[in-house]
Structure formats: C-alpha cells, structure tokens
C-alpha cells in the first residue's frame, strides 16, 4: 500500500519491464540448462542502467539512488529470477566500500559501478549465519600480513574479482580485500539449489599488503554492520518479489483450473488460503519498504526493521511457495512449472545473512529477553 515517489515508481517499472523482456524466467531456464550460474553478459547491461552503482556516490561513478530504489530493483529480480551479482557487489561490497571511504572507494568504486569487477563477501564459517563467530585470522608476521582461515557460502564467490574477507586480528574485527587468484587462496565453486554460484574459500597463509586492509576494529564492525543491514533488507525485497510471483501464478491457476466441473478457485478452502497469503504479502511488502526507507533515512530503528523484514520474509516466502505447489497439485511438482524455481530461490534467500530464527532471537535480545 506504500505510496511510491514518482522516481521510485519509474525505477520499479523500468526494472520490471527490462528484466521481464530479456531476463525473465525463460532466460533463467536457458542459463540453468546451459550450466551457466554467472550470467556474465547481463552485468554490463545493468551497469549501463546504473544498477551496479545504485548505492555508490556520484563522485565515484555511482548513481546514489539509495536503498529503497535498490529494493525495488531486487524485487523485480526476484520476480524474474534474474541471476546477477547485484546483491553481492552492488549492495554488500558497495556498502562496505562506501562505509570505509578513502582510497579503496576511490579505486574500486568506479570499477564496481561500471561493472568491470565484481566482489563477494566472505563472511560465514559455519552452516548457519554466525557473524560473531569468526576464526579466520590476519596476523602480523616478520614477512608481513598473513591471512589464514576458511569461508563458506561465499555467494557469487566463484566469479568474483575480489573477496571482502571478514577476519580477526588480535581479537578485533578486520575487513581485508583479497584477490582470489593470489597464492594460497583456494576457491571451490559450489553450484547451489537455486542455480546460483557460491564458493568455499580456503586462505592458507595468504600474503597481504597494508593497503589490502579496508578497515579495522570499530570502523570494520560498523562497515560490516551497515553492509549486513543493507544486504538483509535488499535480500528481503528480492524474496518479496519471488513470493509475489509464486502467489500470482497460484492465483491465476485458481481462476483457470477446473475440477468437479467448477473452477478450483470456487472452493472456499482455497479462497481463504489464497486471501490469507495475499494479506501476509501485503503486510510484508509494507515492512520491507519501511526497512529500506529507514536505511535511507539513517533512522534508529533501521536495524530492528531490517531484521524483522528478513525474518518475516523467511516465513511469508515459504508460505507463498509452499502454497503455490500445493494449489497446483501434481503439476506444481514438475520442473516445467516455475513454482519449484521460486521455491528454491526462496529457500536460499531465507538462509542468506540469517534465517527467521536468527533475527527473531536478535530482536528478543534487543528487547531484553
């Protein structure tokens, strides 16, 4: 029910129009069937529209449209199942660079915005999201800085030109930039259930220069927190797009499929479940918008709202995709239908940067219990 500004309306329409025309679900299927989990050709196109620099300042070649705009693009990507490095590079990496500023931003900002390079965030070390449990260490040795550790679920890590690695140095948080081609870096690509790439990356005594250190201590923590908040809110927006697309297909099916001589949409059992799903999507939409708007405004409740949005979408996304399959009956289980594709993307997004339980727990701690 959000009243979008004219600018935001245009961005949403342009994103949906562009993606649907050339990068919709059919294109996704073609990539999948060809075993392409990177869709490299799209990158320069969306960079040309400013999307890769959506959060970057104009001074480094970005368009600086803000989080709400980024969320609208992500929602369209969710609807169309578009494979792109948008989330990893344009949101996570760009937010880190913007937060640390300085020469890193000057050097890498334009390259990211133009789509010349992509970056991935190497954060996770366990199968569940635990940003506070980092064992990867950066050590100051006689021969210089050395990085050692192991990361998993590095989304888009198989294609990235640089990795932003979260590590510890003497107990303090540190963010370093690592070239995956450097000696001692072993990237193992993983082909995921949603037909995207992620990687496990091992760092074995990797030599780094002082210039590779993006931020340390409180500055690194703040930059990481900002990136995670942005990533969660934009991932929730993408998940909203996935859920809406699955729901729309199901609502259409209720209007066309006949059994017992009537349209199945005439069965009240299905009508009420469809209407409940519609209500849940409507309020989830408002929450995602509120979270992104709060990030744009820099308001105090932005962390609470982004986490609530991420947790809520994990539930609503599951409801939409599960109901989608169920309401389609047998055909919903087939690869020929899109529902399974939505379900798989939804599943991956739920786990990405913390699932419902993770963020619910945070909110409870935040409230003092």
């Amino acid at each position, binding site marked *: 029910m959000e009243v979008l500004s004219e600018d935001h309306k245009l961005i949403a329409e342009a994103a949906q129009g562009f993606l649907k025309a050339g990068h919709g679900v059919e294109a996704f299927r073609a990539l999948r069937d060809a075993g392409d989990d990177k869709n490299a050709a799209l990158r320069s196109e969306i960079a040309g529209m400013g999307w890769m620099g959506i959060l970057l300042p104009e001074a480094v070649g970005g368009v600086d449209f803000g989080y709400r705009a980024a969320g609208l693009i992500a929602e369209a990507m969710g609807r169309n199942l578009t494979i792109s490095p948008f989330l990893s590079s344009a949101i996570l990496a760009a937010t880190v660079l913007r937060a640390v500023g300085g020469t890193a931003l000057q050097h890498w900002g334009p390259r990211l915005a133009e789509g010349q390079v992509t970056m991935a965030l190497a954060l996770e070390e366990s199968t569940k999201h635990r940003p506070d449990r980092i064992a990867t260490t950066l050590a100051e040795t006689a021969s210089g800085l050395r990085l050692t550790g192991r990361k998993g679920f590095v989304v888009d890590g198989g294609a990235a030109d640089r990795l932003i690695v979260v590590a510890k140095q003497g107990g303090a948080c540190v963010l370093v930039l690592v070239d995956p081609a450097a000696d001692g870096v072993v990237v193992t690509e993983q082909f995921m259930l949603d037909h995207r790439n992620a990687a496990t990356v091992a760092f074995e005594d990797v030599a780094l220069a002082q210039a590779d250190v993006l931020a340390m201590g409180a500055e690194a923590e703040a930059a990481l927190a900002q990136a995670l908040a942005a990533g969660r809110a934009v991932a929730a927006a993408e998940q909203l797009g996935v859920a809406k697309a699955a729901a729309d297909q199901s609502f259409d099916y209720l209007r066309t499929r006949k059994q017992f001589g009537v349209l199945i949409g005439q069965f009240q059992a299905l009508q*009420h479940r469809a209407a409940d799903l519609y209500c849940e999507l*409507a309020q989830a939409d408002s929450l995602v*918008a509120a979270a992104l708007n709060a990030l744009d405004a820099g308001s105090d409740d932005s962390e609470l709202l982004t986490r609530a949005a991420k947790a809520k979408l994990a539930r609503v996304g599951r409801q939409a995709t599960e109901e989608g399959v169920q309401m389609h009956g047998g055909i919903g289980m087939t690869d020929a239908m899109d529902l399974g594709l939505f379900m798989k993307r939804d599943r991956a997004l739920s786990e990405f940067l913390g699932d419902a339980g993770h963020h*619910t727990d945070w*909110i*409870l701690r935040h409230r*003092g*219990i």
Partner: protein
Amino acid sequence: MTDLALFRQETRQWLDAHCPEEMRLPMSEEDICWGGRHFTFRSAAQKAWLEVMAARGWTVPGWPKAYGGGGLSGDEQKILNEEMARINARPPLQSFGIWMLGPALLEFGTEAQKRHYLPQIARGEIRWCQGYSEPGAGSDLAGLQTKGVDQGDHFAVTGQKIWTSYADKADWIFCLVRTEPDASKHTGISFLLFDMESAGVSTRPIKLISGASPFCETFFDDVKVPKDQIVGERGQGWTIAKYLLTHEREMIGASDNALFAKTDLVADAIQSVGVNEDGHLDDPMLRAELGQFLIDEICFDAHMQMSGAYMRAGHELGARSAELKYLGTELNKRRQSLRVSAGGADDLVWEGTANSAGQAAKDWLRAKGNSIEGGTSEVMLSILSKAVLKLPG
C-alpha cells in the same frame, strides 16, 4: 519553519497546557469516554478533557469545522496523533458516531442531517449504537427481516436486532430496516436513524464469557420513525451499510484500537516468568512464540503506517479494510493469548489481587470477539478473495 512544523509546535504547546495529568495515565476499557445523555464521567478531568478538545474540534479532527470537526488535513491529523501519543494523552471521546455513523453521514447525509447530527457526535452529546445483526442475519447480513412499514409521514419499525453493542446505554440507533418488501434482498433495505427512547424500543443485555454485558438484544414494536430520518434513498441502505462497514473494519483492525488492551508483553513476561542466567526469558518456548509475535507486530505496525499514508494521499481503502481487519484482529487474539500464557496461574485469577486482578483474563476473552464483530475473519477472507483476488464466485 514549515507550516506543518509550526502546527506541530503549536499543537504540542496546546496539548501540554490543556491535557490534564490524569488523562495521560494508561487506560483500561472502563476509562473510555463514550459520551451521551446518560454518561457518568469518571472524573472531573475526563469531563474537562472532553470539553476542551470538543471546543477545538479535535474529538473529530478530520471532519469539517462546520460540523464540529477540526478541519485538519491528513498530515495535520497524523501530527496531532503523534503529539497525543507522545504525552500518552487518552482519546477524549470514542464512539460509534465517530467511527461509523459520522463517515457515512459525511458521504450520504443531506446538508441538514450533517448539521444536525454531526456536531452532537463531535461534542459527545449523543451516543449511537449499531442495529445491523439479527438472530437470523449475521454474516448474511442482507438477509435481515426487521421491517419498516410506510405509514405516510413515517415508517413503523418492527423486529429484533441482536449483539447490539451498548444498546442499553445508547441514545440513538442507526438501523438497517427492510422498507421495500417487494424489492430484492439487497435493494429492499433502508438506513434509518432513531431515538432509543422512542415508544416501542426495548433492550435486554446479554452476558458474555468475559462476564461483562456490553451488548444486547434489541426489540422494536411498531416504532415510529419520521421519514426525514432516513439516510440516502429508500432501498439504498445496503450501499450505505457496506460503506460504513469499511470504516468500522478500518477502526477495528487499527493497531491503535483502544479496545485492544495493549500492554507491554515483554515487560509482562519478564515480570511473571523471569529471566535466566543467559539473560533470556526463563521459558524457551514462550520466548520463541513471543519472538514470532513481535515480528508480526512490527510488520503490522509498518503496514498500518503505510495504509495511513495511502489514505492521506487521497486513496480509499475500500475492500482492503477487510485486510487490515483480518490481520489486526487475528494479531490481537495472539497478543492476548500470549499475555495470559505469560501470566500463568496468576492470570487464572478472576477476582483478586494477583497480577492484573483478572483483567488479563477478561481482555483475553474479550479479544475472541475481535474476529467476529464487524464481520468474521472468514467473511473478510471471502471478501478479499472476490473483491481483490477476483477469484470465481
């Protein structure tokens, strides 16, 4: 300073100067000021607060000044609400007149009706009740049988209503009556207004599971209703009734609905269950359930904010009021269930001193009606599936 910033500043100063301290304390259902001929104020402060707000038109801030309102724009109303919330100012007046009849009269009433009825509502002089449901016509409201026979200058109304909230305390009723016996189910109904002191009106309170008797059976035996007390045209009652219901649903669903008896669930839970050495609520399953509730509450609040902005931008909610009603009432049922779960045995107390002295249990029971009053959750879902999702009939 912008006009709105100036308005906020003036409003803040005015509220600080005029809102009595007592009217800034948390309230329960008994503290609601309903107004009306027979209303007994619970305190001098309650009366003073109503009078000073009514004089400014702020009991109904959005209504035109000519009808006793404040003539405020949507943005100004939002600021007034925020400034009242800031000091925990109680609503000076709540009533079915404000929530339901007023909006319907503004849309369908004649100029004379607006000038007559609306200021009485704004000043809290006349308390209204809603005569819709009948023993045989609940969800199937258009099946109502109370009849109004044309007697030249008036209708003679005979029949029975049920679940009429506060009928025994109300001064007037807005009532759905079948005046066109030969017309179809939906086109034979008229929307009539009449005084509950008219000859032939009687009420009988119904005791509820919460122990309270807020609603009544209401009987009409040949009640004379002058013809100028019809709103809209003869036979147009269903259209008006539905319009009014969208406002009722908006109000019931709203997260600031004063009838929702909102308490700080987290504080309640800490107080009764306690916190363990990890700093967590000492009941992991209750904690988990509370967590899911908090997420949904944050979500619904965001949705209400967005819908507020949507309406201020000039959009009508229409059938989507069913969406807010459904979400808001189901959420409140969960809220009240969690509250009594957190209270444990203490909140089994019906009368006594433990914990909330039975209030939590009563609020919990009262909340069960939220998904029934104003149209059941099932009816809301049916409306949405047809009006919004366009699923086949």
